[in-house]
């Protein structure tokens, strides 16, 4: 499997970041960074990562099932994550998630038919004091109201959204 030069560079760095013989350590970050590039964790990716890190595909499978950010199925180009954990919940996070599902016409972990947007109700993302919060891919958005949410979605659809992370 071939990846972009930037990702290959990251992989090369990862594999030398850990003590000798400990390349298994690279499995989780490698899967996440690769998923960001190819959209999901494919079987081919599983075998590739297993091979590069010197583990069995089963050992990679075990990891994928464990971590909630690793997805076997493709996500949308923009993965919209709405936090409904208690800090967000008590200031409208659940309402915001309901609004998101209705607006986008998709349920939890589903993707819009055009593949542009996927939605996920997530656990606490570390923006509690600025709740309710969402993440679009890795960007945080704080104090998100329904109106702000609609603007963000419009920007995604218009192609005017600028990612920071």
């Amino acid at each position: 499997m071939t990846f972009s030069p930037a990702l290959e560079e990251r992989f090369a760095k990862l594999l030398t970041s850990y003590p000798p013989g400990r390349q298994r350590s690279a499995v989780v970050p490698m899967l996440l960074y690769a998923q960001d590039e190819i959209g999901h964790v494919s079987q081919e990716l599983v075998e590739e990562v297993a091979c590069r890190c010197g583990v069995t595909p089963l050992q990679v499978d075990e990891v994928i099932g464990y971590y909630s950010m690793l997805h076997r199925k493709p996500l949308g180009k923009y993965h919209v994550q709405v936090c409904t954990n208690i800090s967000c919940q008590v200031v409208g996070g659940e309402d915001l998630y309901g609004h998101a599902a209705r607006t986008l016409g998709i349920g939890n972990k589903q993707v819009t038919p055009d593949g542009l947007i996927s939605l996920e109700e997530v656990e606490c993302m570390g923006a509690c004091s600025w709740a309710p919060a969402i993440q679009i891919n890795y960007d945080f958005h704080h104090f998100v109201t329904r109106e702000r949410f609609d603007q963000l979605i419009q920007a995604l659809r218009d192609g005017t959204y600028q990612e920071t992370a």
Partner: protein
Amino acid sequence: MRYNVPSPLETRIISQRFDLPNSASIDTYLANDGYVALRKAIGMAPEAIIDELRASSLRGRGGAGFPTGMKWSFVPRNTGRPSYIICNSDESEPCTCKDRLLMENDPQQLIEGMLIAGWTIQSSKGYIFIRGEYRYQIEIMERAIAEAYERGYLGKNVLGTGWDFDLYTHSGAGAYECGEETALLESLEGKRGVPRLKPPFPAVAGAFQSPTILNNTETLSTVPVIIRMGGADYAALGTPKNGGTRLMCVSGHVNKPGVYELPLGFPLMRLINDVCGGMRNRKKLKAVIPGGSSAPVLKAEECDIPLDFDSIAKAKSMAGSGGILVLDEDTDMVAVALRTIKFYAHESCGWCIPCREGTTWLKKVLTRFHDGGGRSSDIDLIAELANNMLGRTFCALGDAAAMPTAAFVAKFRDEFEAYLKRSSAAVEPELAVV
């Protein structure tokens, strides 16, 4: 960048550079006391550094509140084997959003803290384990690490001492359990984030089965401050055995939620009323969750306490991660209890029976209860199930789920009973035969 306006009541020590322009850059850092502590530490014996930490009475800011000096003193030195410095930046405790700020606004401070830890045990490698969602923060840390390498603070022959120290970021991928230190170490080794049997403790056999210092982001970020100002002076900011300041993450129904650096022992009611501008919409205070979602809820009348580890423990809750959720009179406590247990059921790693099955059962009962299918026996059942988990699970996640659940039922039983009145099935359940 800060996301809330600072309060004049804060004691800004570890957040002192947060509002400076380009606060994340090494130049800003160097111009504002940066790396003074490392230079000082290099002239100190390891035991002296640990003594300063002991004197500071710094307690772990991740949740357990274990004395940091003591933790460092457990790490065997001069073993001839590699040792590691691990920063726990897996910040996942609901209501907690401070480690993120420390990385975004002052990454060099964290690096300096890790360097001092590394110097203390003569470790040559460190990893910052950052939750996968914090990609932006990982990038900031990586830029900061690169800057520190450029300036000779990292890499070969740090500051001409002949000592080498390499530092790396390591991304998680979504698992609350990895905040548990041994689960974090498993995850760092490329495995499922399932906690390890203890002993051995990470101090002796941690990362890659080697001696390891493993601390929370805020704890390590505090280390340079302590070395610079001296342990005793730092301790004096707080209360006895609860030294210094901490970042308190206030969320919920206050006018000015935000992250504020306050001395330990700062009164909770002053935090709500003076720092955070009081209750939103002039509602009445109903309850506070004082230390992240794992901390048992305090009723309004229990909130007249100072915010330090021992005082909150005395109130039968815990200071935990410093996440403080303020709830007003309109809050549906059953809904909060349900959302809390949903979280733990989602995050239970599944390793041990009581946590795996207990959290899910509680989630199911509370869901049914919340959705109008509650039965009168459910209230006691919830309490009993929580009790059957408490103290019996492999790691603290089970307790973290059971304690708040038990507290919600015990303290807001009337709200649970009110739900029953709306329930369509508030009759005794027929007992299913096993």
